[in-house]
């Protein structure tokens, strides 16, 4: 290739002084650096989303399809009518959708990590959390789109939330927070598992019991005692109850508090686990 003279600003030829460079190195990234690096990784994830809009398929289809389908199939049987069932169902679907998006986060993380470019990310002096947290920040868009779409579909088929606009905004916000926090579990799985397929498989196994063995679609009181006991400790149930309180009553109840505390606990445990497993996996 032709060799052009470099801009003197970028290439001060023959002035590489390693000992001076060594003196300038830092032993760990500062908080400010970590922030810039995480945001740069988020930028990368956003670019990818824009170039591969098919990624949004599940985010768009699931809220539309499941909301309408479940409402009309179960509505009469469970609550007597579709409109009576919607206040029960919509928060349930919100939680289910958030979990589905979480799963996609983990699977995509695994796929991404198998690419050659992750070798470069690892070789660069960047905070180990940045390649994980960056895409998760970009994913906030997906949680947002999925949640809003679910609520809108509900409104279209007759959902009239008692909590009003503010309650709904609160419910959607809580769904996004819960989804984002739980996504750390799946990201951790992504850094652990051997392949994207295995992440998908394991995630399914976690997701199905968590969503269906919860109060997302049916009132817990109708279940046999042993199942009711499980449903009551299932964290998804708490998120669903909290979202119901917000959307239907506009009330910030203890459930909301517990849901937020639960989310914080999940992040506190799984974010460090994920970062540790990511830095080891080389």
């Amino acid at each position, binding site marked *: *290739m*032709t*060799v*052009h003279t*470099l*801009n003197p*600003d*970028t*290439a001060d*030829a*023959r*002035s*590489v*002084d*390693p*000992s001076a*460079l*060594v003196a*300038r*190195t*830092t*032993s*760990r*990234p500062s908080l400010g*650096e970590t922030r*810039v*690096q995480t945001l*740069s*990784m988020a*930028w*990368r994830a956003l*670019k*990818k989303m824009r*170039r*591969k809009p098919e990624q949004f398929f599940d985010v768009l289809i699931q809220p539309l399809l499941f909301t309408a389908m479940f409402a009309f199939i179960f509505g009469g049987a469970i609550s007597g009518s579709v409109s009576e069932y919607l206040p029960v169902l919509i928060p349930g679907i919100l939680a289910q959708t958030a979990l589905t998006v979480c799963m996609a986060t983990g699977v995509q993380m695994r796929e991404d990590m198998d*690419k*050659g*470019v*992750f*070798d*470069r*990310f*690892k*070789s*660069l*002096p*960047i905070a180990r959390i*940045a390649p994980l947290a960056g895409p998760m920040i970009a994913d906030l868009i997906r949680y947002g789109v999925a949640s809003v779409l679910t609520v809108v579909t509900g409104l279209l088929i007759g959902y009239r939330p008692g909590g009003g606009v503010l309650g709904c905004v609160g419910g959607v916000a809580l769904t996004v927070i819960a989804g984002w926090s739980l996504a750390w579990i799946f990201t951790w799985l992504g850094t652990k598992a051997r392949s994207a397929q295995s992440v998908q498989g394991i995630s399914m196994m976690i997701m199905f019991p968590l969503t269906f063995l919860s109060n997302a679609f049916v009132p817990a009181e109708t279940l046999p005692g042993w199942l009711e006991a499980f449903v009551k400790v299932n964290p998804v149930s708490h998120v669903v109850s909290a979202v119901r309180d917000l959307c239907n009553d506009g009330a910030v109840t203890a459930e909301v508090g517990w849901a937020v505390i639960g989310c914080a606990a999940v992040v506190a445990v799984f974010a460090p686990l994920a970062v540790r497993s990511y830095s*080891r996996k*080389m």
Partner: protein
Amino acid sequence: MADLSAVRADGLVKAFGDFRAVDGVDLHVRQGEIFGVLGPNGAGKTTMLRMLATLLPVDGGHAEIFGVDVRREPHRVRQLVGVTGQYASVDEDLTARENLWLFGRLQGVTSARAKAIAGDLLERFDLQEAADRPLAQFSGGMRRRLDLASSLITRPPLIFLDEPTTGLDPRTRGQMWDTIRDLVTDGSTILLTTQYLDEADQLAHRVAVIDRGRKVAEDTPDALKSQVGESTLQLGLAEGADIALAADVVRRLLGEDPVLTPESGRVNIPLPDPDRAADVLIGLREAGLRISSVSVAKPTLDEVFLALTGHGADDESQMEAAR
């Protein structure tokens, strides 16, 4: 601190289960040189490089980059080293310009300056025209160039090149060699791995030969080659010619034993100096021996290997190691 080594590794070990991919290698790379690590597939070259680049944990031994401990302070080491891998490690979903900008941002370069550097590097590596096209349309050579450009954004004093020209066509390969030479003129130190003796010969000031995770030799390329003879004269004798007589002639003229294949009448003669080929040919003519084919071959990696280790570069154990 002129005596500060770019790389100093003592007894480096990497084990995968029972298999020791790198088995006690010492390496000493001086500032400002191109140091070549030569060996066949599966010899442990890449594993060694990945350990030095903090991409793989070091299982045993000690390694320092410009005096910074690789195990204890990986974040520091990462600020001093640029890594260009065997497989281009750039983001397929971004354009060339976006790749360079992102890598710049990640390393603390301001957005505007990252843009300027990206522009300069794209120009220097002849990638301006393709700068905003998707990477899927890039040729192998372009990818490799972008990969190398990505390693140069912060102008690291030490650059690791893992088989920089494997899979490139001869012309692109020559261009890559020129680029690598320029980097050293700019003051960088380069540690490169290669399977090609030719490449080590062209670029490296000093070469370490790695076999089955061990260093079997370390020298200048010239000294290594001289161990197997500068080149080999390969003769095919005409039918009915006396192969023993030919061997005598060679021994008398060069003082070395040729390698004989009596079944096909082939004689391989190591030449200390290519100039002596004519002497051998004249000697054979005078002895009345007729020749059906003549060629002069440069020593191959395989021959260097054979001379150094007593086994070929491609024999079974190496293939096994490669898996």
